[in-house]
Protein backbone atom coordinates (compact mmCIF):
# COMPACT_ATOMS: atom_id res chain seq x y z
CA UNK A 1 0.00 0.00 0.00
CA UNK A 2 1.36 3.46 -0.92
CA UNK A 3 1.30 6.45 1.42
CA UNK A 4 -1.23 8.13 -0.87
CA UNK A 5 -3.56 5.12 -0.70
CA UNK A 6 -3.27 5.05 3.07
CA UNK A 7 -3.95 8.78 3.26
CA UNK A 8 -7.12 8.45 1.15
CA UNK A 9 -8.44 5.76 3.47
CA UNK A 10 -7.62 7.80 6.55
CA UNK A 11 -9.50 10.75 5.06
CA UNK A 12 -12.48 8.40 4.70
CA UNK A 13 -12.16 7.68 8.41
CA UNK A 14 -11.98 11.38 9.26
CA UNK A 15 -15.24 11.91 7.40
CA UNK A 16 -16.94 9.72 10.00
CA UNK A 17 -15.50 11.68 12.94
CA UNK A 18 -18.40 13.94 13.82
CA UNK A 19 -16.38 16.62 15.60
CA UNK A 20 -14.40 17.34 12.42
CA UNK A 21 -15.96 19.67 9.86
CA UNK A 22 -15.91 17.76 6.53
CA UNK A 23 -15.20 21.02 4.69
CA UNK A 24 -11.76 21.02 6.28
CA UNK A 25 -10.84 17.69 4.72
CA UNK A 26 -10.42 19.03 1.17
CA UNK A 27 -6.75 20.05 1.31
CA UNK A 28 -5.24 17.57 3.68
CA UNK A 29 -1.50 17.00 3.56
CA UNK A 30 0.75 14.77 5.62
CA UNK A 31 1.53 17.80 7.79
CA UNK A 32 -2.13 18.39 8.66
CA UNK A 33 -2.60 18.09 12.41
CA UNK A 34 -5.93 16.61 13.45
CA UNK A 35 -6.06 18.73 16.61
CA UNK A 36 -4.56 22.08 15.68
CA UNK A 37 -5.55 22.18 11.99
CA UNK A 38 -8.84 20.26 11.93
CA UNK A 39 -10.07 21.30 15.38
CA UNK A 40 -10.65 17.76 16.62
CA UNK A 41 -10.63 17.38 20.42
CA UNK A 42 -7.56 15.43 21.55
CA UNK A 43 -9.96 12.80 22.89
CA UNK A 44 -10.86 11.92 19.28
CA UNK A 45 -7.41 10.48 18.54
CA UNK A 46 -8.27 7.14 20.09
CA UNK A 47 -11.44 7.06 18.03
CA UNK A 48 -9.46 7.67 14.85
CA UNK A 49 -6.95 4.98 15.79
CA UNK A 50 -9.68 2.44 16.54
CA UNK A 51 -11.40 3.20 13.26
CA UNK A 52 -8.06 2.79 11.45
CA UNK A 53 -7.70 -0.70 12.94
CA UNK A 54 -11.09 -1.59 11.55
CA UNK A 55 -10.52 0.06 8.16
CA UNK A 56 -7.15 -1.60 7.53
CA UNK A 57 -7.95 -4.86 9.33
CA UNK A 58 -4.96 -4.51 11.63
CA UNK A 59 -4.42 -4.37 15.39
CA UNK A 60 -1.98 -1.89 16.91
CA UNK A 61 0.15 -2.56 19.96
CA UNK A 62 -0.62 -0.31 22.92
CA UNK A 63 2.97 1.01 22.92
CA UNK A 64 2.59 2.25 19.36
CA UNK A 65 -0.72 3.96 20.17
CA UNK A 66 0.86 5.65 23.17
CA UNK A 67 3.57 7.11 20.93
CA UNK A 68 1.43 8.21 18.01
CA UNK A 69 1.44 11.88 16.98
CA UNK A 70 -1.57 13.81 15.80
CA UNK A 71 -0.67 14.52 12.16
CA UNK A 72 -1.79 12.71 9.05
CA UNK A 73 1.83 11.69 8.43
CA UNK A 74 2.09 10.14 11.91
CA UNK A 75 -1.03 8.10 11.28
CA UNK A 76 0.13 6.96 7.84
CA UNK A 77 3.46 5.85 9.37
CA UNK A 78 1.69 3.77 11.98
CA UNK A 79 -0.78 2.23 9.55
CA UNK A 80 1.89 1.30 6.99
CA UNK A 81 4.08 -0.26 9.68
CA UNK A 82 1.30 -2.77 10.36
CA UNK A 83 -0.08 -3.12 6.83
CA UNK A 84 3.38 -3.93 5.45
CA UNK A 85 3.96 -6.40 8.30
CA UNK A 86 0.82 -8.21 7.23
CA UNK A 87 1.90 -8.72 3.59
CA UNK A 88 3.34 -12.22 3.04
CA UNK A 89 6.91 -12.57 1.73
CA UNK A 90 7.09 -13.51 -1.95
Amino acid at each position, binding site marked *: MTREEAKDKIVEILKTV*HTINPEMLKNITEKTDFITDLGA*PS*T*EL*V*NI*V*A*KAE*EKFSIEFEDDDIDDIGSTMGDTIDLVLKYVNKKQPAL
Partner: protein
Amino acid sequence: MKPRKVAVVGIGGIFPSCSSIDEFSSKMFADKSLIREWPEAILHGKKMRSTVSGYTSLEECGLEEVPSSLLVNYPEIFKDKYNRIPIGNLSTADLGSIWAMLGTQDAIKMSGWTDKEVRSEHTGVVIGSGAGGNEVSRKSWHNFFELDKKTRYLGSHNVDRVMVYRDAANVSCLIQSKGVCECIGSACATGLGNIGYAYRLIAFGLQDRIIAGGIEGTSMESFIGFDAMQVLSRGFEPEKSSRPFDIDRNGFVCSFGAGIVALEAYEIAKARGANILAVIDNYFNNSDGSGDMFAPSIEGQQRLWNGLLGNNRDRLFPDVVKVHGTSTPLGDAIELFSVVNYLGDNGYHISAPKSQFGHMLGAAGAVEFVLAVLMLKEQKMSPCLNSDRLNEQPETFQREADWPGTKEPVAAFRHLLPRQTVAKEINRIVCLNYGFGSTNSAVVLSRDI
Protein backbone atom coordinates in the same frame (compact mmCIF):
# COMPACT_ATOMS: atom_id res chain seq x y z
CA MET B 1 -27.97 35.72 57.97
CA LYS B 2 -31.39 36.41 56.55
CA PRO B 3 -31.80 34.43 53.31
CA ARG B 4 -32.15 36.37 50.06
CA LYS B 5 -35.35 36.01 48.07
CA VAL B 6 -34.95 33.82 44.99
CA ALA B 7 -36.81 34.37 41.73
CA VAL B 8 -37.67 31.89 38.99
CA VAL B 9 -36.90 33.69 35.72
CA GLY B 10 -36.88 30.87 33.18
CA ILE B 11 -38.27 27.38 32.65
CA GLY B 12 -37.71 24.65 30.07
CA GLY B 13 -37.62 20.92 29.61
CA ILE B 14 -38.53 17.84 27.66
CA PHE B 15 -42.08 16.67 28.24
CA PRO B 16 -43.64 13.39 27.05
CA SER B 17 -45.56 13.60 23.79
CA CYS B 18 -44.92 17.36 23.60
CA SER B 19 -42.71 19.32 21.24
CA SER B 20 -42.58 22.48 23.35
CA ILE B 21 -43.37 23.87 26.78
CA ASP B 22 -46.39 25.67 25.29
CA GLU B 23 -47.79 22.35 24.07
CA PHE B 24 -47.08 20.85 27.50
CA SER B 25 -48.95 23.70 29.19
CA SER B 26 -51.96 23.50 26.90
CA LYS B 27 -52.24 19.71 27.27
CA MET B 28 -51.90 19.81 31.05
CA PHE B 29 -54.68 22.37 31.48
CA ALA B 30 -56.87 20.55 28.94
CA ASP B 31 -56.81 17.44 31.17
CA LYS B 32 -54.91 15.37 28.59
CA SER B 33 -52.88 12.30 29.44
CA LEU B 34 -49.34 12.14 28.02
CA ILE B 35 -49.06 8.39 28.69
CA ARG B 36 -48.83 5.88 25.83
CA GLU B 37 -47.97 2.28 25.18
CA TRP B 38 -44.17 2.15 25.03
CA PRO B 39 -42.95 0.09 22.04
CA GLU B 40 -39.57 -0.52 23.67
CA ALA B 41 -41.24 -2.27 26.63
CA ILE B 42 -43.68 -4.15 24.42
CA LEU B 43 -40.70 -5.59 22.50
CA HIS B 44 -39.89 -7.70 25.56
CA GLY B 45 -43.26 -9.43 25.60
CA LYS B 46 -44.24 -11.38 28.66
CA LYS B 47 -41.02 -10.59 30.46
CA MET B 48 -42.56 -7.19 31.18
CA ARG B 49 -45.44 -6.62 33.57
CA SER B 50 -46.16 -3.02 32.57
CA THR B 51 -45.80 -1.51 29.09
CA VAL B 52 -47.08 2.06 29.42
CA SER B 53 -44.95 5.17 29.82
CA GLY B 54 -44.77 8.90 29.33
CA TYR B 55 -41.84 9.07 26.94
CA THR B 56 -40.40 11.12 24.11
CA SER B 57 -38.96 9.41 21.05
CA LEU B 58 -35.72 10.58 19.46
CA GLU B 59 -37.72 11.74 16.45
CA GLU B 60 -40.04 13.79 18.65
CA CYS B 61 -37.16 15.68 20.22
CA GLY B 62 -35.36 16.20 16.91
CA LEU B 63 -32.46 13.84 17.57
CA GLU B 64 -30.91 11.03 15.58
CA GLU B 65 -28.69 8.23 16.86
CA VAL B 66 -25.52 7.61 14.84
CA PRO B 67 -24.37 4.04 15.45
CA SER B 68 -20.73 3.20 15.97
CA SER B 69 -19.04 1.27 13.17
CA LEU B 70 -16.81 -0.43 15.73
CA LEU B 71 -19.32 -1.73 18.25
CA VAL B 72 -22.65 -3.50 18.10
CA ASN B 73 -25.69 -1.33 18.78
CA TYR B 74 -23.62 1.44 20.38
CA PRO B 75 -24.55 5.11 19.83
CA GLU B 76 -21.36 6.89 18.77
CA ILE B 77 -23.19 10.21 18.99
CA PHE B 78 -26.67 11.72 18.91
CA LYS B 79 -27.11 14.30 16.16
CA ASP B 80 -29.38 17.30 16.55
CA LYS B 81 -31.52 17.72 13.44
CA TYR B 82 -32.13 21.38 14.23
CA ASN B 83 -28.50 22.29 15.09
CA ARG B 84 -29.44 23.61 18.52
CA ILE B 85 -26.48 21.99 20.28
CA PRO B 86 -22.90 22.24 18.89
CA ILE B 87 -21.45 18.90 17.76
CA GLY B 88 -18.64 19.06 20.35
CA ASN B 89 -21.21 19.19 23.16
CA LEU B 90 -23.27 16.41 21.60
CA SER B 91 -20.20 14.17 21.53
CA THR B 92 -19.97 14.19 25.35
CA ALA B 93 -23.69 13.73 26.05
CA ASP B 94 -26.08 10.87 26.54
CA LEU B 95 -29.73 11.42 25.72
CA GLY B 96 -30.64 12.84 29.14
CA SER B 97 -27.74 15.30 29.01
CA ILE B 98 -28.92 16.53 25.63
CA TRP B 99 -32.36 17.07 27.11
CA ALA B 100 -30.74 19.02 29.95
CA MET B 101 -28.95 21.24 27.42
CA LEU B 102 -32.11 21.82 25.36
CA GLY B 103 -34.10 22.72 28.48
CA THR B 104 -31.31 25.04 29.58
CA GLN B 105 -31.33 26.88 26.26
CA ASP B 106 -35.06 27.53 26.62
CA ALA B 107 -34.78 28.59 30.26
CA ILE B 108 -31.88 30.99 29.58
CA LYS B 109 -33.67 32.49 26.60
CA MET B 110 -36.70 33.13 28.82
CA SER B 111 -34.54 34.56 31.62
CA GLY B 112 -33.04 37.30 29.47
CA TRP B 113 -29.58 36.64 30.94
CA THR B 114 -26.72 38.08 28.87
CA ASP B 115 -23.74 35.96 27.83
CA LYS B 116 -21.67 37.86 30.38
CA GLU B 117 -24.10 36.96 33.15
CA VAL B 118 -24.22 33.31 32.08
CA ARG B 119 -20.42 33.03 31.84
CA SER B 120 -19.93 34.51 35.30
CA GLU B 121 -18.36 32.93 38.37
CA HIS B 122 -21.61 33.86 40.11
CA THR B 123 -23.59 31.54 37.81
CA GLY B 124 -23.80 27.85 38.62
CA VAL B 125 -25.39 24.62 37.40
CA VAL B 126 -27.09 22.11 39.70
CA ILE B 127 -28.82 19.30 37.82
CA GLY B 128 -29.26 15.66 38.79
CA SER B 129 -30.81 12.47 37.54
CA GLY B 130 -32.26 9.42 39.23
CA ALA B 131 -30.23 6.79 37.39
CA GLY B 132 -26.85 6.61 35.70
CA GLY B 133 -26.40 6.71 31.93
CA ASN B 134 -27.89 3.24 31.68
CA GLU B 135 -28.48 3.03 27.95
CA VAL B 136 -24.86 3.90 27.13
CA SER B 137 -23.50 1.73 29.94
CA ARG B 138 -25.47 -1.35 28.95
CA LYS B 139 -24.25 -1.22 25.36
CA SER B 140 -20.66 -0.48 26.41
CA TRP B 141 -20.45 -3.37 28.83
CA HIS B 142 -22.16 -5.76 26.43
CA ASN B 143 -19.54 -5.03 23.79
CA PHE B 144 -16.65 -5.39 26.22
CA PHE B 145 -17.74 -8.33 28.35
CA GLU B 146 -19.87 -10.35 25.97
CA LEU B 147 -18.48 -9.45 22.55
CA ASP B 148 -14.83 -9.16 23.64
CA LYS B 149 -14.25 -5.73 22.11
CA LYS B 150 -11.20 -3.69 23.08
CA THR B 151 -11.76 -0.75 25.43
CA ARG B 152 -10.55 1.74 22.83
CA TYR B 153 -13.46 0.81 20.57
CA LEU B 154 -15.66 2.66 23.06
CA GLY B 155 -13.84 5.88 22.15
CA SER B 156 -13.30 8.63 24.69
CA HIS B 157 -16.89 9.41 25.54
CA ASN B 158 -18.04 6.54 27.70
CA VAL B 159 -17.16 8.17 31.02
CA ASP B 160 -18.59 11.60 30.29
CA ARG B 161 -21.84 10.05 29.07
CA VAL B 162 -22.42 7.83 32.12
CA MET B 163 -20.90 9.72 35.07
CA VAL B 164 -23.30 10.69 37.84
CA TYR B 165 -23.21 14.43 37.20
CA ARG B 166 -23.11 14.23 33.41
CA ASP B 167 -26.21 16.44 33.00
CA ALA B 168 -24.76 19.29 35.07
CA ALA B 169 -21.33 18.88 33.46
CA ASN B 170 -22.69 18.96 29.92
CA VAL B 171 -24.84 22.02 30.64
CA SER B 172 -21.96 23.86 32.29
CA CYS B 173 -19.68 23.13 29.33
CA LEU B 174 -22.40 24.29 26.93
CA ILE B 175 -23.08 27.62 28.64
CA GLN B 176 -19.52 28.10 29.98
CA SER B 177 -20.65 29.09 33.46
CA LYS B 178 -17.86 29.59 36.00
CA GLY B 179 -19.63 28.93 39.31
CA VAL B 180 -20.76 25.79 41.13
CA CYS B 181 -21.33 22.70 38.98
CA GLU B 182 -22.78 19.76 40.92
CA CYS B 183 -25.63 17.29 41.14
CA ILE B 184 -27.76 16.15 44.04
CA GLY B 185 -29.15 12.63 44.09
CA SER B 186 -32.18 11.72 46.18
CA ALA B 187 -34.07 9.15 44.08
CA CYS B 188 -37.52 10.43 43.14
CA ALA B 189 -36.93 13.65 45.10
CA THR B 190 -33.88 14.44 42.93
CA GLY B 191 -35.55 17.02 40.70
CA LEU B 192 -36.85 19.09 43.59
CA GLY B 193 -33.70 18.40 45.62
CA ASN B 194 -31.51 20.03 42.99
CA ILE B 195 -33.78 23.05 42.75
CA GLY B 196 -33.83 23.27 46.53
CA TYR B 197 -30.05 23.10 46.79
CA ALA B 198 -29.75 25.76 44.10
CA TYR B 199 -32.24 27.92 46.01
CA ARG B 200 -30.05 27.67 49.12
CA LEU B 201 -26.88 28.56 47.21
CA ILE B 202 -28.53 31.76 46.01
CA ALA B 203 -30.46 32.52 49.20
CA PHE B 204 -27.28 32.37 51.28
CA GLY B 205 -25.23 34.44 48.86
CA LEU B 206 -22.94 31.78 47.34
CA GLN B 207 -24.27 32.24 43.80
CA ASP B 208 -26.44 34.84 42.03
CA ARG B 209 -27.84 32.70 39.23
CA ILE B 210 -28.26 28.95 38.82
CA ILE B 211 -29.56 26.61 36.15
CA ALA B 212 -31.19 23.82 38.16
CA GLY B 213 -33.34 20.80 37.55
CA GLY B 214 -33.79 17.09 37.19
CA ILE B 215 -33.45 14.68 34.29
CA GLU B 216 -34.49 11.11 33.62
CA GLY B 217 -33.27 9.99 30.22
CA THR B 218 -35.12 7.13 28.55
CA SER B 219 -33.84 3.88 30.01
CA MET B 220 -35.15 0.35 29.93
CA GLU B 221 -33.05 -0.38 33.03
CA SER B 222 -35.02 2.08 35.16
CA PHE B 223 -38.28 0.69 33.85
CA ILE B 224 -37.23 -2.95 34.37
CA GLY B 225 -36.09 -2.30 37.95
CA PHE B 226 -39.47 -0.94 38.99
CA ASP B 227 -41.34 -3.52 36.92
CA ALA B 228 -39.48 -6.19 38.86
CA MET B 229 -40.73 -4.67 42.11
CA GLN B 230 -44.32 -5.08 40.84
CA VAL B 231 -44.94 -1.40 41.56
CA LEU B 232 -45.87 -0.27 38.04
CA SER B 233 -49.43 0.23 36.92
CA ARG B 234 -51.02 -2.47 34.81
CA GLY B 235 -54.42 -3.45 33.48
CA PHE B 236 -55.68 -0.04 32.36
CA GLU B 237 -55.73 1.78 29.04
CA PRO B 238 -52.59 3.96 28.84
CA GLU B 239 -54.32 7.26 29.58
CA LYS B 240 -56.13 5.68 32.54
CA SER B 241 -53.04 3.97 33.96
CA SER B 242 -51.92 6.68 36.34
CA ARG B 243 -54.74 7.30 38.82
CA PRO B 244 -53.55 8.81 42.11
CA PHE B 245 -56.09 8.49 44.94
CA ASP B 246 -58.47 6.32 42.89
CA ILE B 247 -59.51 3.16 44.73
CA ASP B 248 -58.36 0.95 41.83
CA ARG B 249 -54.83 2.40 41.54
CA ASN B 250 -52.25 -0.35 41.43
CA GLY B 251 -48.91 1.30 40.73
CA PHE B 252 -47.14 4.17 39.03
CA VAL B 253 -46.35 4.77 35.38
CA CYS B 254 -42.60 4.90 34.76
CA SER B 255 -41.88 7.94 32.60
CA PHE B 256 -38.97 9.97 31.28
CA GLY B 257 -38.31 13.68 30.74
CA ALA B 258 -36.48 16.77 31.92
CA GLY B 259 -37.30 19.89 33.89
CA ILE B 260 -34.99 22.91 34.01
CA VAL B 261 -35.37 26.25 35.78
CA ALA B 262 -33.33 29.44 35.78
CA LEU B 263 -33.10 30.86 39.31
CA GLU B 264 -31.76 34.30 40.22
CA ALA B 265 -31.35 36.41 43.33
CA TYR B 266 -34.63 38.32 43.46
CA GLU B 267 -33.16 41.79 43.93
CA ILE B 268 -30.79 41.30 41.00
CA ALA B 269 -33.61 40.04 38.77
CA LYS B 270 -35.84 42.92 39.84
CA ALA B 271 -33.12 45.50 39.23
CA ARG B 272 -32.61 44.38 35.64
CA GLY B 273 -36.36 44.35 34.95
CA ALA B 274 -36.63 40.57 34.54
CA ASN B 275 -39.95 38.86 34.03
CA ILE B 276 -40.26 37.11 37.39
CA LEU B 277 -42.30 33.96 36.92
CA ALA B 278 -42.38 32.97 40.60
CA VAL B 279 -40.64 33.57 43.91
CA ILE B 280 -39.36 30.70 46.07
CA ASP B 281 -40.40 31.42 49.67
CA ASN B 282 -38.69 28.43 51.23
CA TYR B 283 -37.32 24.95 50.65
CA PHE B 284 -37.04 22.20 53.23
CA ASN B 285 -36.02 18.56 53.16
CA ASN B 286 -35.64 15.79 55.72
CA SER B 287 -35.76 12.04 56.25
CA ASP B 288 -38.39 9.88 57.91
CA GLY B 289 -35.90 8.25 60.26
CA SER B 290 -38.06 5.16 60.20
CA GLY B 291 -35.32 2.85 59.01
CA ASP B 292 -37.54 1.79 56.11
CA MET B 293 -36.21 2.21 52.56
CA PHE B 294 -39.61 2.41 50.91
CA ALA B 295 -42.58 3.06 53.22
CA PRO B 296 -43.84 6.64 53.55
CA SER B 297 -44.26 8.10 57.02
CA ILE B 298 -46.87 10.61 58.13
CA GLU B 299 -44.57 11.55 60.98
CA GLY B 300 -41.73 12.40 58.59
CA GLN B 301 -44.10 14.30 56.32
CA GLN B 302 -45.50 16.33 59.24
CA ARG B 303 -41.96 17.37 60.15
CA LEU B 304 -41.47 18.28 56.49
CA TRP B 305 -44.48 20.62 56.57
CA ASN B 306 -43.36 22.14 59.85
CA GLY B 307 -39.88 22.74 58.48
CA LEU B 308 -41.25 24.28 55.32
CA LEU B 309 -43.83 26.66 56.78
CA GLY B 310 -43.12 26.70 60.52
CA ASN B 311 -44.37 29.91 62.09
CA ASN B 312 -45.40 31.16 58.65
CA ARG B 313 -48.16 28.60 58.16
CA ASP B 314 -50.90 31.17 57.82
CA ARG B 315 -48.87 33.68 55.78
CA LEU B 316 -47.67 31.00 53.38
CA PHE B 317 -50.88 28.93 53.31
CA PRO B 318 -51.04 27.48 49.78
CA ASP B 319 -53.87 27.73 47.26
CA VAL B 320 -52.62 24.52 45.66
CA VAL B 321 -50.69 21.57 47.03
CA LYS B 322 -48.86 19.82 44.22
CA VAL B 323 -48.46 16.34 45.67
CA HIS B 324 -46.00 13.56 44.85
CA GLY B 325 -49.10 11.38 44.22
CA THR B 326 -47.59 8.45 42.36
CA SER B 327 -50.70 6.22 42.06
CA THR B 328 -49.34 3.62 44.48
CA PRO B 329 -51.83 2.27 47.03
CA LEU B 330 -50.05 3.20 50.27
CA GLY B 331 -48.19 6.36 49.27
CA ASP B 332 -51.17 8.35 47.98
CA ALA B 333 -53.34 7.73 51.01
CA ILE B 334 -50.66 8.62 53.56
CA GLU B 335 -49.70 11.73 51.62
CA LEU B 336 -53.32 12.90 51.44
CA PHE B 337 -53.87 12.38 55.15
CA SER B 338 -50.59 14.11 55.90
CA VAL B 339 -51.62 17.19 53.89
CA VAL B 340 -55.01 17.24 55.60
CA ASN B 341 -53.41 16.79 58.99
CA TYR B 342 -51.29 19.88 58.51
CA LEU B 343 -53.53 22.20 56.45
CA GLY B 344 -57.02 21.07 57.42
CA ASP B 345 -59.53 20.12 54.77
CA ASN B 346 -60.45 23.38 53.10
CA GLY B 347 -59.00 26.52 51.52
CA TYR B 348 -56.85 24.74 48.94
CA HIS B 349 -56.91 22.08 46.22
CA ILE B 350 -54.61 19.17 45.49
CA SER B 351 -52.97 18.72 42.10
CA ALA B 352 -51.48 15.34 41.13
CA PRO B 353 -49.59 15.85 37.85
CA LYS B 354 -48.32 12.27 37.68
CA SER B 355 -51.93 11.40 36.84
CA GLN B 356 -51.25 13.01 33.45
CA PHE B 357 -47.65 12.16 32.62
CA GLY B 358 -46.59 9.42 35.02
CA HIS B 359 -43.59 9.37 37.31
CA MET B 360 -40.44 10.84 35.76
CA LEU B 361 -38.27 9.58 38.66
CA GLY B 362 -35.27 11.92 38.97
CA ALA B 363 -36.97 14.47 36.73
CA ALA B 364 -40.33 14.32 38.50
CA GLY B 365 -39.81 17.09 41.05
CA ALA B 366 -38.32 19.44 38.47
CA VAL B 367 -40.97 18.88 35.79
CA GLU B 368 -43.68 19.26 38.42
CA PHE B 369 -42.02 22.47 39.67
CA VAL B 370 -42.10 23.76 36.08
CA LEU B 371 -45.80 22.88 35.99
CA ALA B 372 -46.37 24.74 39.27
CA VAL B 373 -44.81 27.84 37.69
CA LEU B 374 -47.19 27.39 34.75
CA MET B 375 -50.11 27.14 37.21
CA LEU B 376 -49.14 30.52 38.66
CA LYS B 377 -48.86 31.96 35.16
CA GLU B 378 -52.13 30.56 33.82
CA GLN B 379 -54.05 30.82 37.11
CA LYS B 380 -55.23 27.27 36.58
CA MET B 381 -54.40 24.12 38.51
CA SER B 382 -53.93 20.77 36.82
CA PRO B 383 -56.18 17.98 38.07
CA CYS B 384 -56.05 14.61 39.78
CA LEU B 385 -56.95 12.86 36.56
CA ASN B 386 -58.60 9.43 36.84
CA SER B 387 -59.33 9.82 40.56
CA ASP B 388 -62.78 8.56 39.63
CA ARG B 389 -63.71 6.51 42.65
CA LEU B 390 -62.35 7.09 46.13
CA ASN B 391 -62.23 4.60 48.96
CA GLU B 392 -65.18 5.18 51.24
CA GLN B 393 -63.74 2.91 53.93
CA PRO B 394 -60.79 3.74 56.17
CA GLU B 395 -57.44 2.34 55.03
CA THR B 396 -56.12 -0.61 57.04
CA PHE B 397 -53.38 1.49 58.63
CA GLN B 398 -55.96 4.03 59.81
CA ARG B 399 -57.41 1.37 62.06
CA GLU B 400 -54.16 0.86 63.92
CA ALA B 401 -54.09 2.22 67.46
CA ASP B 402 -51.01 4.39 66.98
CA TRP B 403 -52.13 5.99 63.69
CA PRO B 404 -51.76 9.73 64.36
CA GLY B 405 -53.81 11.06 61.44
CA THR B 406 -57.44 11.40 60.44
CA LYS B 407 -59.77 8.44 60.71
CA GLU B 408 -61.81 9.71 57.74
CA PRO B 409 -61.48 7.73 54.51
CA VAL B 410 -59.99 9.12 51.28
CA ALA B 411 -63.50 9.75 49.94
CA ALA B 412 -64.12 12.32 52.68
CA PHE B 413 -61.68 14.61 50.84
CA ARG B 414 -63.24 14.45 47.35
CA HIS B 415 -63.61 18.25 47.39
CA LEU B 416 -59.82 18.64 47.56
CA LEU B 417 -59.17 16.35 44.57
CA PRO B 418 -60.59 17.84 41.36
CA ARG B 419 -60.81 15.55 38.35
CA GLN B 420 -60.62 18.47 35.94
CA THR B 421 -58.45 21.57 35.67
CA VAL B 422 -59.64 24.31 38.02
CA ALA B 423 -59.39 27.99 37.10
CA LYS B 424 -59.01 30.05 40.26
CA GLU B 425 -56.82 32.64 41.92
CA ILE B 426 -53.50 30.95 42.67
CA ASN B 427 -50.94 32.98 44.59
CA ARG B 428 -49.01 30.23 46.34
CA ILE B 429 -48.21 26.57 45.69
CA VAL B 430 -46.48 23.95 47.82
CA CYS B 431 -44.69 21.19 45.88
CA LEU B 432 -43.97 17.85 47.57
CA ASN B 433 -41.68 15.03 46.45
CA TYR B 434 -40.36 11.94 48.21
CA GLY B 435 -37.80 9.29 47.37
CA PHE B 436 -36.53 5.84 48.28
CA GLY B 437 -34.43 6.03 51.40
CA SER B 438 -37.26 7.87 53.18
CA THR B 439 -36.20 11.27 51.90
CA ASN B 440 -38.73 14.10 51.71
CA SER B 441 -38.53 17.46 49.90
CA ALA B 442 -40.86 20.45 49.80
CA VAL B 443 -40.84 23.93 48.33
CA VAL B 444 -43.26 26.82 48.58
CA LEU B 445 -43.42 29.26 45.70
CA SER B 446 -45.50 32.36 45.11
CA ARG B 447 -46.61 34.71 42.41
CA ASP B 448 -44.57 37.95 42.42
CA ILE B 449 -47.30 40.31 43.55
